[in-house]
């Protein structure tokens, strides 16, 4: 029967407040981790690492920090999969944009350095 199908459907009584009773310890840990990561990225600049290694470290550290903030502070880790996917998919377009713009910028730079 159709009614049963509907009433049994989980979406009828959604958890309007997903369970977020995490211990404060978790936040303090994330907090500490963020400090350490920031200090590390600051240190990368302080000891004047150059070239690929510098860029690699900076990017990795930034992404790790971002991951911590989004997943722990913004609770995304404990959200439903549907939401997580919706949040994480659109930035793909930004990555493609980045690739194209980088290519374009390089091309123009080459032109300018060779012909001026």
């Amino acid at each position, binding site marked *: 029967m159709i009614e049963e199908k509907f009433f049994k459907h989980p979406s009828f009584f959604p958890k309007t407040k997903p369970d977020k009773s995490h211990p404060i310890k978790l936040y303090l840990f994330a907090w500490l981790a963020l400090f350490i990561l920031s200090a590390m990225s600051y240190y990368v600049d302080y000891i004047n690492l150059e070239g690929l290694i510098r860029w690699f470290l900076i990017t990795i550290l930034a992404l790790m920090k971002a991951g911590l903030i989004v997943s722990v502070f913004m609770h995304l880790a404990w959200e439903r999969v549907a939401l997580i996917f919706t949040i994480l998919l659109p930035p793909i377009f930004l990555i493609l944009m980045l690739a194209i713009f980088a290519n374009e910028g390089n091309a*123009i730079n080459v*032109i*300018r350095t060779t*012909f*001026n």
Partner: protein
Amino acid sequence: MMASIVFAIFTLLVIVFNYYSIENDFWFPELASNWGALDTATLMTLIISGIVFVGLSLFICYCLVRFRHKENSKAEYQIENNKLESWLAAVTTIGVIILLAPGLMVYSDLINEPEDSLKIEAIGEQWTWSFRLPGADGFFGKTHPKHFDLNNSFGLDPTDQYAQDDILIKSNILHLPIDKAVSLSLRSKDVLHDFYVPQFRVKMDMVPGQLTKLWFEPTIEGRYEILCAEYCGIQHTNMRGLVVVESEEKYKKWLSEQVIFANTSIDITSNSNNQEILSGENLSISLGCIACHSLDGSKNVGPSWKGIFGTERTLINGTKLLADRLYIEESIIKPNSKILMGFAPIMPIYNLDDKELDLIVEYIESLN
């Protein structure tokens, strides 16, 4: 019923118009370069899409007649037919590939210029063209926007030894030898322009602060207009040039008459009156005055220079005054202080020194 018939009529009208436009030359201009491939690609797309359009349209018209509402007629209940739809998708994909593949091949030719091509640089500015050839050494001298000034309208680096023998063509008429691949480097001094010769088919924007490339091979002797295809300000329409395709020897002769960079930029120093008129003319060209002020009395964005000197002019506010030396100098330095009747206050301010002012005014005076 009626509706579908009218729809069908309009569909066929497209085909009719196809013939009409071929009759009336709304069709590819005469081809004068090696880029017939572009026409082929376009024509192919036109035919395929034309067939698809007529087919689909007539099918719709048929449906409208065949399945129009009648007494107790009832529609068929079919939710979907994945087999049919995947077939249609597959056919469309094949069609797209058929269109795309040749296009990409032509494009790869388009962006790879031949090695032995004739190197020419075209410079666009509001609203005229000028050209530069590498000269005897076969190398372009370095250029930089910061070198631009009234005597160095190509922005060449004076210290570069390659630059000295570069051939500068300040007029907007370019001569080309026939059946020789030409690769153009395109530069712009001010805003976006686009080098376009309809008979050569290809076009490419000129972007300030960078350099774009374009190549073609003229195949028919003749004189063809150069047009600006990218909107570049109110005189966009009047930004025209001329490319003359001629035999090798004629081209050589023309080339030998052109000045090289080392011999330019001497005009302003000399003093004889005749010299000044000449260099005033050059000045007015390099300043781009003549883009807005015609020399033959015809009305343009700005008032024509022919025969204005010493005549009485009427301003917007109705006051009349004599177009003497002072008035003309003021109109150059503070253009929007006195606006002529029937013209818009759009002239930019030119801060020229007294000598240059004199040259311009002398030149205008000489046009009487």
